[in-house]
Structures are given as C-alpha cells and as structure tokens.
C-alpha cells in the first residue's frame, strides 16, 4: 500500500471513530445574534449531560437571519430544536411545515422564552446630539440607524418600540403614534437587511447618530469595538422582546432525540443556563440570577408584544404588505 493510501485510510478511519464515539448529536437552528450565547451555553450543558447520563453529546449550531432559519426548517433542515427571536418564526414552522405541534409555547415556562431582551438606543461617545428618549429621534438633525422591518425581527421590534412608546405618551392615540413613528423612520438614512448589518453601518461606517437595537447586541458591540466608543441610552419605556425556543416534534421523534432535546431546552431555565444568559446580557427569568446581575440590567418600564395582541397580530397590522409600515414608507418617500 502506498503511503498516500495509508494516509487516506487513516484519516477516514479516524473520521469513522469520531462518529461512533459521538453517541448523540443535536442540531440547534438559531439566529445570528445568538451565536455568542450558545457558544457559551453548549459546553455548560454538555458537561451537565455527560455527567448525568455518561453519554457523549455533540451539539451542532446553525445561525442566520431568524426567518431565513425558520424557512430552512420548513424546507426540511433537520433541526432538533429551534431558538428564534420572534414567535412568528416558530408559528410559521407550525403552520407551513407542520414539523412543530401547535401549543409549543405552553410546553415551557414563560411562554417558552427562557430570557428576553429589549430595545435600547446606542449613541456616539459623549452623546453629542443629547439623545435621552424616543422623542429625540424625530429631531430634524438626528439620523437613526435601524434594520429593515420588512426583513429583520430586530427592525420590527424597533418599529413596535417606537410606536408603543408614542402610544403611551399620547394616551393611546393611534393617529399620534403613527405620526411619531413616521417621523422616526423619516430620519432613517438607510435600511440594512439585518441587525448585524445595522451595527456595522453604525459602528464601522460611522453612519448616523443613534442605533436602535437589542440590549444584548449592545454588549456585543462593547466586546467588538470597545466600551469607550459609544453609550447605551435606556429610554423611559421600551419593548420587551421574548426570545422563544421550541422542540421540533417531527424531527426529534424521527431521530429519537426528544429526551435529550427537551433537556437541552429545559436546562436554559436552570440557574446555570440563566447565569450564562445574564453574562451575555440576556435578561434572565430566574429571580436569584436576575438579582445577582441587577446592576447590568437597569429597570425601566417595559411593555410586551401582547400590547399589540401578540406578534402574529402585530405582523398583520404593521408589517404585512400594504400594512401600516408600508403606508408610512410610501408617505416618507413622497415627501422626499
């Protein structure tokens, strides 16, 4: 046997042994921004799992835009669990792909969202434009960087946060909320397709005066670009973004991984899982962990998507084609 053949054989054999050694594998299909969290969470869970069951566990990750990831699952990507940034993405898997059984949100506590985030305002060092609250976003000399609400969950939360804040300030007057939100989006110079792209535009290209994004993304920016380069402004009121998780019933039953996958998700609520979440600036549900990290999560007034009758109703009212967001965009375009 030639040396080359021996090497090939050795490599393929080692490949096989690695496969047989890994007894169980899980595929977690998630969205962009969760990469950092699951990078920290997976080893913690693996350690717990291997100690408890004396079994080797491999966890594979897939990341991308939340809705795009949901579409992959609908089209047949064999995810054991999905972890998304909005419930409508999981609902889509229920309705279009039928891989997840209805009622998934009742399977776990907190509507199956082990942690949450919220929309904050990120401004340049020293806050040169003096931005304190939502109302400052409509000043004529302020440029707001926001991801596209048509293609990004992050952008949808921004829209809802602005709308909800205006609603609260105007005693529930919808017409005023609409005017306010339109004024905010009239100050948006460009629309990136996703949250990460908007962050790049703001931090790297130095476009705009304020970036509206998730609180945990602010932490990512701090790690990436240094803490001294920007300030996080907590508005007087903001939207609570629940980040839901679900078992993909059809896949776990087919692959026989229901128990492991269930444990994987359930462990997110354990003190250890919650601790990892808090370290990644995701707001924990566990009271003890929340108390421990209280300093990094300023308490502000929050409202949920429930305010709009849930994400599904909000999608229909605001973001479907021809709905309020499209109407506002048309009005802004006409004025320019």
């Amino acid at each position: 046997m030639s040396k080359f053949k021996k090497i090939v054989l050795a490599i393929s054999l080692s490949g096989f042994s690695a496969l047989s050694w890994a007894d169980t594998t899980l595929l977690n299909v998630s969205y962009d921004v969760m990469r950092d969290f699951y990078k920290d969470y997976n080893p913690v869970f693996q350690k717990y799992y291997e100690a408890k069951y004396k079994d080797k566990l491999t966890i594979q990750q897939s990341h991308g835009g939340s809705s795009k990831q949901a579409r992959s699952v609908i089209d047949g990507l064999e995810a054991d669990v999905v972890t998304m940034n909005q419930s409508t993405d999981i609902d889509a898997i229920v309705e279009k792909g039928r891989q997840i059984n209805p009622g998934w949100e009742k399977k776990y506590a907190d509507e199956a969202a082990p942690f949450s985030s919220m929309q904050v305002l990120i401004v340049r060092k020293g806050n040169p434009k003096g931005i304190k609250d939502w109302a400052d976003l409509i000043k004529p000399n302020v440029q707001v960087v926001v991801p596209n609400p048509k293609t990004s969950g992050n952008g949808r939360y921004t829209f809802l946060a602005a709308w909800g804040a205006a609603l609260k300030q105007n005693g529930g007057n919808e017409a005023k909320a609409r005017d306010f939100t339109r004024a905010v989006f009239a100050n948006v110079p460009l629309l990136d397709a996703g949250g990460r792209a908007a962050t790049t535009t703001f931090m790297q290209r130095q476009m705009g005066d304020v970036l509206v994004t998730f609180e945990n993304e602010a932490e990512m920016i701090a790690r990436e670009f240094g803490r001294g380069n920007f300030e996080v402004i907590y508005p007087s009121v903001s939207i609570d973004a629940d980040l839901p998780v679900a078992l993909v019933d059809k896949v776990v039953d087919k692959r026989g991984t229901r128990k492991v996958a269930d444990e994987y998700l359930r462990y997110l609520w354990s003190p250890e899982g919650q601790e990892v979440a808090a370290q990644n600036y995701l707001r924990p549900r566990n009271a003890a962990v929340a108390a421990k990290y209280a300093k990094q999560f300023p308490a502000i007034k929050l409202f949920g998507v429930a305010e709009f009758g849930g994400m599904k109703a909000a999608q229909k009212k605001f973001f479907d084609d021809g709905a309020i967001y499209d109407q506002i965009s048309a009005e802004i375009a006409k004025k320019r």
Partner: protein
Amino acid sequence: MKWKQSSVLPGFNLALGYSVLYLSLIVLLPLAALISKSMGLDWASFWAIVTEPRVVASYKVTFGASLIAALINLFVGLLIAWVLVRYSFPGKRFIDALVDLPFALPTAVAGIALATLYAPNGLLGAPLDQLGIKIAFTPAGIVLALTFITLPFVVRTVQPVLEDMEKELEEAASSLGATRWQIFCKVILPTIFPALLTGFTLAFARAIGEFGSVIFIAGNMPFKSEITPLMIISKLEQYDYLGATAIAVVMLVVSFALLLLINGLQWWVTRHRR
C-alpha cells in the same frame, strides 16, 4: 445541422439527447416549478402583487441600474479588451487575470468592500462626500456594484474577437486612404459588434438578478433604492411564497423578453452586414 446528417464525429444523437436532458433538469425544471407555483394565484391577485407601487418602483431601480451598468461596461469593457489585445506592457498578464476577479469573488464580499470604500467615512467616500457626491447608500451605489459585478462579460466576449481580427484588414483600409475614425467605424466596429452586443446582454442579464453585492451598498430605501430581488426576499421573510414567486416570474418574463429582443437585434445586425 440537419437532423440526420452524417458527421465526422459520431454520437450526435447521444450528445443532443444528453444536452436536452441536462438543460431540462438544470434550467427548465426549476423555472417550470417557479411558474407552476405562481399558478396558485388567480390573475387578479397576481396582478395586484406585481403592480404594487413599491414593487413597480423596484423594477425601475433594478432594470434602470442594470441598463446603466451594462452601458458603462459596454464602453469600459471594450476599452479594457482593446488595451489588453493591442498593446503589450509590463504586468499585462496580471491585469488580464484581474478582469476575472469579479467572477470569482463572492458578491457579498464585493458589496461589503465597495460599501466600506464608498461610505461617507470610507477611503474614497470621504473625499467624494466633501465634494457633495454620495455613492454608497444611494442608487449610484447600486450602479457601482452592478458595474463591478458585470465587468468581465464585455471584456471576455470582445477580447477573442479582437484577437482574431486580422491586422491586414486595417492596413488595407489605411492604404486605401481611410482615416483612423473611418477604420474604427467601418472595419473594426462591425466585426466586434455582435460580440459587444453579446457581452452587453450577458452583463445586463446578470445585473438584473444580482442581490448579494447590491444589498450592502444600496441603502434599501423604499421607492428609492430597493431592488426587485429585495422585494422577493422580503416576501419570503413573510413566508409569502406565492407573492415571491409572482415577482420572480415577472422578472423572468421581462428578462427573457429583453434577451430575445437583444438576440434578435444581434441576428439582424449580423445578417444585415453580409
């Protein structure tokens, strides 16, 4: 070639059969699936989706920017091909290889690179911004990205024709008293015109479908700098598969009509010349 004509090379039937099968599997089947999916819509709702003002605005951006980019490359591509064929200079092979780079580069990488370069704080964007010229995050950025992506098409279609052209023709024209301009218009241009047109068509068609590079530099403002592929993606984001395929079908039909038109023009020009 006639249906039953004995050829020097054997296996015509087999080769034709294989070609047709291959094209059907790779090209026709996916396109047919696309069209059949859009059949799930009745005509009225199909029409409503594809004539929505925002979508119509995106057609203008996509087809307009693609046309401009293809026109730019028609001239610049011819110039580059000319320089590469007719002159020799140090580093020529390197420049020749450079032309193909836009083919090899992932388009998203090109888009990000262009956006970084032309952003208001970018290397080229900053001085341009001083002059009041904005490229990134405006329709000009779309044209820029499309020009970058489609550059090789004109160069690579015109280059071999220029290489094959016999210099003696030009010399003959010259000895018969033709001016340089006359030689270019009456001798060179007619020879390379079909190739130029092919390059233009390819560049135009490629630009229409381009998504990756444009999305980072366009700014994506509704009614202003949204390309049609983005409309399709945003339909998909809403799980509106039917709406997405409806717009895709419109793009397909319009592109195909344009390609037919240009091919027809090319055929007419070639025939007319002889």
